[in-house]
């Protein structure tokens, strides 16, 4: 017999009014750790400041989506990996990768995450590369404005 019960048996008039919270703490901590691990994994692509607009449509997340990010310093990412340090510099690695991805799985949706501070011309040039690789469906990712 566990000694915990022995103590209760020896003092019958003593009543423990507090619930046993240890399992609750265990479950809460495990859930907390799960959410902490999942949260950073949800961010796809490079860290950019997305443009804010009033009522964008929701783009469903799919396995096949390809995320291309353009950062403020004009570096270009596919997924989480940087493929070019400057949009106007050496883009051969990016082009080769995009062509390869299109050859392997054509018709994928390309999501473009561009920084709000870049010029439209930069994004247009990036889209030219995407178009030249054979992709036709793009989604321009923005953030919903919380001002209104």
């Amino acid at each position, binding site marked *: 017999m566990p000694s915990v019960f022995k103590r209760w048996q020896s003092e019958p008039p003593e009543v423990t009014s507090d619930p046993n919270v240890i399992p609750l703490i265990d479950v809460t901590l495990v859930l907390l750790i799960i959410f902490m691990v999942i949260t950073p994994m949800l961010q796809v692509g490079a860290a950019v400041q997305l443009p804010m607009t009033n009522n964008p*449509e929701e783009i469903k997340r799919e396995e096949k989506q390809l995320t291309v990010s353009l950062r403020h310093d004009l570096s270009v990412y596919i997924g989480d990996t940087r493929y070019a340090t400057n949009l106007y510099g050496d883009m051969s690695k990016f082009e080769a990768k995009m062509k390869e991805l299109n050859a392997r799985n054509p018709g994928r949706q390309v999501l473009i995450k561009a920084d709000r501070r870049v010029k439209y011309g930069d994004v247009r040039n990036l889209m030219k590369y995407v178009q030249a690789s054979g*992709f036709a469906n793009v989604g321009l990712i923005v953030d919903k404005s919380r001002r209104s």
Partner: protein
Amino acid sequence: MGIQVGGRRGGPMSDPNVIPFIDICLVLLIIFMIVVTVLIAQMGYLSKLPPRAQTQTPPPASEQIVIRVMAPCGPGQFASCRVFINREEVPMGQLLARIQQIMQGRSTQMIFFTADDDVNYENAMRILDVIRQGGARNIGILTEPISITASEPTGSPATVQ
């Protein structure tokens, strides 16, 4: 609110007080749950990149609608952006109404969108937002710069408020 496990008549209290700890853990859990649901929603504008051959010569047919954003339209200067529908300049305040009028009854028609290179990306997206709000569901993005000669800003009077 204090927990008094085992502390009878001045005896030593062997169990730590875990209630504040649980409180903090639960609050953190709720914060993470909210953050995850916010991050899962991915917002944006679905559009098409027309194949190369078409973009080099944008067909100026009357059916074709090309919306063009022109400089000056730097960061934070949304009000000074100039928007053209085909060759006609539309003041920012009337843009939504004009697009709704155009899209009436033909919501499947493709609208082409383009902007000058110097236009800030966020401003371009905000105009794309207005176009979508006006009912356009098929948005094509022109990747080659186009020149509509009749809409050169030098000749037309400024009508932007």
